[in-house]
């Protein structure tokens, strides 16, 4: 017995160690599958560059005081063309530095997409799980609500809500959350219904696992990959829709946000001052593209349903 316990001690260390290694190896395998696709790698490189830009924004450009998310104004240098000393990408009509807007806009976008995605994922996963697990009337009602939400085009819906709430960046976040959670609810519900019929769930019930344990250990981990794929895609989509709303004027004017900047530069386009709108516009495009490329790559690897397509 004593000897046994000693062995146990050794195996114990071994246990977590090897379990960790095996899981790590598995994840690296998945990663290498993701990286086998060149377009995904391209997307990932752009994503990393964007993220680096967002994170190191205060290093790249001197933060504006007091609020770094407000564009600094240099009225004397208004309407400078790109490559003007001190204003490498030029300035807007109102003297906003385009380069500053591009760099801090990445930070705004990152803030926006992470906030919206995490809120919508949490909301959608909870509601979808409840619908899928409880079933019956609750499911019926929740899914009718989801159907109504899904029947309205994303952009128009977000626009309407943001307009009702009044122009501010916080309201844009709120509008986007209201619009984007439904997809997760639907995905999660379908997954939960699929997974809860698996026999490993029955096996867990038979061994006496509690409902919560079954949800956390069996259902959630096995139904999460499509949610992750959708979240990656939405990291891009949300910035696109958010920028559109800002462009229309639904966020505060003057903040370092790509949509706001495009809108600010718009007036100058007819006079040949293309730069103020083009650079931030390009950033929105690249951001959305990059996350969509990565999302598609993830889907191919994680989602067995599309596996045959490749």
């Amino acid at each position, binding site marked *: 017995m004593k000897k046994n316990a000693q062995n*146990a001690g050794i195996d*114990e260390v071994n246990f977590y160690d090897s379990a960790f290694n095996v*899981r790590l190896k598995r994840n690296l395998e998945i990663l290498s599958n993701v990286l086998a696709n060149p377009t995904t790698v391209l997307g990932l490189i752009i994503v990393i560059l964007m993220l680096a830009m967002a994170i190191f924004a205060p290093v790249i450009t001197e933060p504006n005081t007091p609020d770094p998310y407000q564009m600094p104004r240099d009225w004397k240098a208004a309407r400078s063309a790109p490559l003007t000393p001190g204003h490498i990408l030029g300035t807007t009509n109102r003297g906003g530095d385009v380069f500053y807007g591009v760099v801090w806009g990445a930070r705004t976008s990152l803030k926006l997409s992470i906030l919206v995605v995490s809120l919508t994922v949490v909301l959608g996963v909870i509601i979808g799980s409840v619908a899928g697990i409880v079933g019956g009337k609750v499911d019926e009602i929740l899914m009718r609500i989801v159907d109504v939400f899904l029947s309205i085009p994303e952009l128009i819906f977000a626009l309407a809500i943001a307009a009702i709430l009044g122009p501010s960046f916080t309201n844009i976040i709120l509008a986007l959350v209201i619009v984007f959670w439904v997809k997760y609810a639907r995905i999660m519900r379908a997954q939960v219904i699929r997974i809860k019929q698996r026999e490993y769930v029955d096996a867990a019930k038979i*061994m*006496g696992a509690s409902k919560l344990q079954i949800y956390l250990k069996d259902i959630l981990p096995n139904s999460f990959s499509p949610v992750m794929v959708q979240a990656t895609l939405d990291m891009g989509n949300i910035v696109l829709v958010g920028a559109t709303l800002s462009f229309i004027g639904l966020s505060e004017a003057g903040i370092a946000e790509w949509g706001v900047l495009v809108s600010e530069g718009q007036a100058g386009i007819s006079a040949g001052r293309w730069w103020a709108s083009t650079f931030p516009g390009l950033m929105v495009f690249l951001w959305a593209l990059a996350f969509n490329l990565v999302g598609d790559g993830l889907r191919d690897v994680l989602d067995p349903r599309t596996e045959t397509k490749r």
Partner: protein
Amino acid sequence: MSNSKNTILSLRNVKKHFPIKEGVFQNVVGQVHAVDGVSFDIGAGETVGLVGESGCGKTTIGRCVSGLEPLTDGDIFFDLTPEKLVALEDFEKHQSEIKNKYLIDEIQSTSNISKIEGDDFYNYRRNCQMVFQDSFSSLSPRQLVSDIVSRPLKIHKVCADNELIPRTIELLEQVGLGKQHLYRFPHQFSGGQRQRISIARALALDPKLIVLDEPTSALDVSVQAQILNLLHDLQKQRGLSYLFITHNLSVIRHMADKIVVMYLGKVVEAGKTEDIFANPQHPYTKALLAASPDLSEDVMSDMAALDGPIPDPARPPQGCSFRTRCPVSRTECGWEVDDIIRRLEHHETLIDSIKSVHQPDAFNAKLTFETSLSAIELKDVVGTKDIPKQMRKAIKKIEVKGNDVNISFDPVQTVPLVQSENGSLSRCVLANK
């Protein structure tokens, strides 16, 4: 009856009906009679084989036994002493004179799996485990073998944390795997090995009963034999009882002490394995045996193989439910109006001209046709070969009144399970003689 041993499991008139829902409002429009009054016992250390065609309710029974499905009716008792079993049987026979009410109450509250609570339920959970057919679906793809096999130990706090892994290794070794398999994912194993992992998981809590739902059907024949031998050895070492579900008769012959043959949710024959193989009583059992070539024996050569569709379990036939396919059916097998309609498949125009069916019960009906000609045609068809002789004889009355045809049969009770000459139970009018 095994004399001094406990009865590990006793099913008494177990019913499980699934509602059929339709439409937006999910109205219940009928019930699938998946299990319809099943009774049998499993003794300690015994293997009971449950056989029957696809859809007859085998898996449903397994799921009821393991507590995954609540029962519609009936009781399942777990681990009864011989005295308790006798008391229960006594009580069922003489409901009115309750002699030992307190004992019955005790049995209900400590052994009835739908009523037990607390420690007793916990105890039952530990003692009844299940192995599924599909070894892919029964192991979570995101858990390592170590997690899968040690999970029941953790849930029931069987051992200290630092003993978890040695115990898991021990379990793996008992099913012919080892330490080297601990940290792998299920998809890294073959089908046979995955089934071994499932068995190790089922053994973890040292149960008394394991429900095996077609544990080898998905495996190659050679692997199948290895798994069956493993199950056999484990049973010997640990005194396990098995409820072995399969449609493969050669497997059941190898494994089971007793056999329960099911058809459409009901037991049609039950008895000792040797008896049933040597001298099957029920025409359905005979047909099943005749249909497995490796087992065919002279007794069965006169039986035609099973043909025809299995009736809809939402509307199981009255009388003997096997009569729609029985090659030796009799007049008294419980014919009903639906049988005539089932037999009209070659007369499409006649079926199309039925305007309405008024059917107060299964044995009486008024069919209304578009024309009186069709009504007369129906009566004529009943006179032809399309309707078997025994069925025709069972018709009490068939009369044409204008566009209507009134048909009535003698009402028949469900054919009971009775002791036949070889000692097994059989549900057939032929065995009642």
